[in-house]
């Protein structure tokens, strides 16, 4: 394909071209929540009022970054938060060579033959998953080693362009979910302690075991379906992160802010937003809020001194 791009550039160097509905960034620039809410939810239906109330409740704390709205959006939003917020490589990534995991799984169970990729590949499925996991390791390392916010943002914009690289990272996340599901299911069968969401995950008729979880649910994620809430728990648990979601349609209930998983809350959760548990956007801590924290910490320092 690169050959074709070069040919195109050379051929069209003197022939002006206009893009007709080109793909844009998978994650948009930050915008104000209040403005967004008033623009998108005009009118006075019960629903509009509820959603706007939800937005208003968090508008001073966060800014919004819109995420490309396909069936990968939950994974994409989480991946974006991981790459833009992670302070260090997590222990599980640091301590193992995760690119060895597909082969290990394949020698144990015949799952990977069921895998579906959103792009063509000349490699075997195992090899391609190895490549995806290696890419995830590299990008995560690159992210935490960024020397400035600008550098980090530039790196994220390079990834989130809607090209193969982005989808390889998203498929890597799906693999991690599968591997974790296999481990948890095995623990459950042995009678060991497992997080609460496991019972729900495997209680569904369509996913009583990891194999059916893969064939009926996971391998369709990104294609014909997104992530169910119990699968959001699995995603958070697989990454050893907590995903904190503001669920606007649950405003005025105790589910307005939900943690996936909710039993072990990380000090710095990955913050997402959803209006309907279907489409997820990213919440970025607002600069105003950051300024407020800065002022607060300065005051505390002054008082101590």
């Amino acid at each position: 394909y690169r050959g074709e791009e070069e040919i195109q550039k050379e051929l069209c160097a003197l022939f002006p071209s206009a893009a007709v509905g080109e793909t844009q960034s998978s994650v948009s620039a930050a915008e104000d929540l209040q403005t967004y809410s008033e623009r998108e939810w005009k009118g006075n239906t019960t629903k509009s009022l509820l959603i706007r109330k939800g937005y208003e409740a968090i508008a001073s704390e966060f800014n919004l970054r819109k995420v490309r709205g396909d069936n990968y959006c939950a994974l994409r939003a989480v991946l974006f938060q991981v790459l833009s917020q992670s302070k260090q490589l997590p222990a599980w990534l640091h301590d193992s060579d995760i690119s060895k995991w597909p082969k290990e799984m394949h020698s144990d169970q015949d799952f990977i033959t069921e895998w579906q990729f959103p792009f063509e590949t000349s490699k075997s499925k195992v090899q391609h998953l190895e490549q995806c996991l290696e890419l995830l390791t590299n990008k995560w390392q690159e992210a935490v080693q960024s020397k400035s916010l600008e550098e980090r943002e530039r790196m994220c914009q390079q990834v989130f362009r809607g090209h193969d690289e982005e989808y390889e990272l998203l498929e890597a996340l799906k693999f991690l979910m599968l591997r974790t599901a296999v481990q948890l299911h095995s623990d459950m069968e042995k009678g060991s302690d497992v997080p609460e969401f496991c019972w729900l995950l495997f209680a569904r008729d369509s996913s009583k075991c990891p194999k059916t979880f893969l064939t009926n649910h996971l391998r369709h994620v990104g294609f014909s379906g997104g992530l169910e809430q119990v699968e959001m728990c699995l995603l958070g648990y697989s990454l050893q992160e907590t995903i904190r979601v503001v669920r606007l349609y649950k405003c005025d209930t105790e589910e307005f802010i939900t943690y996936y998983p909710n039993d072990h809350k990380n000090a710095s959760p990955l913050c997402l937003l959803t209006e309907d548990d279907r489409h997820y956007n990213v919440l970025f801590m607002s600069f105003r809020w950051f300024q407020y924290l800065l002022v607060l910490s300065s005051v505390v320092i002054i008082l101590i001194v």
Partner: protein
Amino acid sequence: QQRIEIHKLRDGDNLILGFSIGGGIDQDPSQNPFSEDKTDKGIYVTRVSKGGPAEVAGLRMGDKIMQVNGWDMTMVTHDQARKKLTKKNEDVVRLLVTRKSLENAVRQSMMQH
């Protein structure tokens, strides 16, 4: 001639097609690398995004667009062409295109330099 049906991809507010066009009655046709006749002021596809709706539908770089949803594209300006393709209320565009083999276009272009 080929009929290409592109299903635009909805991304929030945007409708994605995934290609670029060159040409038009207000443009200089002599620089068009894809046309056989260098006075041809038609609309040509200059780039197709990999994996985008246009590629999936079978559109290729170098295709000449003759019609869009029944509208003639052989005598339009560059901007008129773009507008016909990006109507917000249309989820599908049906193109009539003619296609020369790309190898011919490249070879022809190389011969001219």
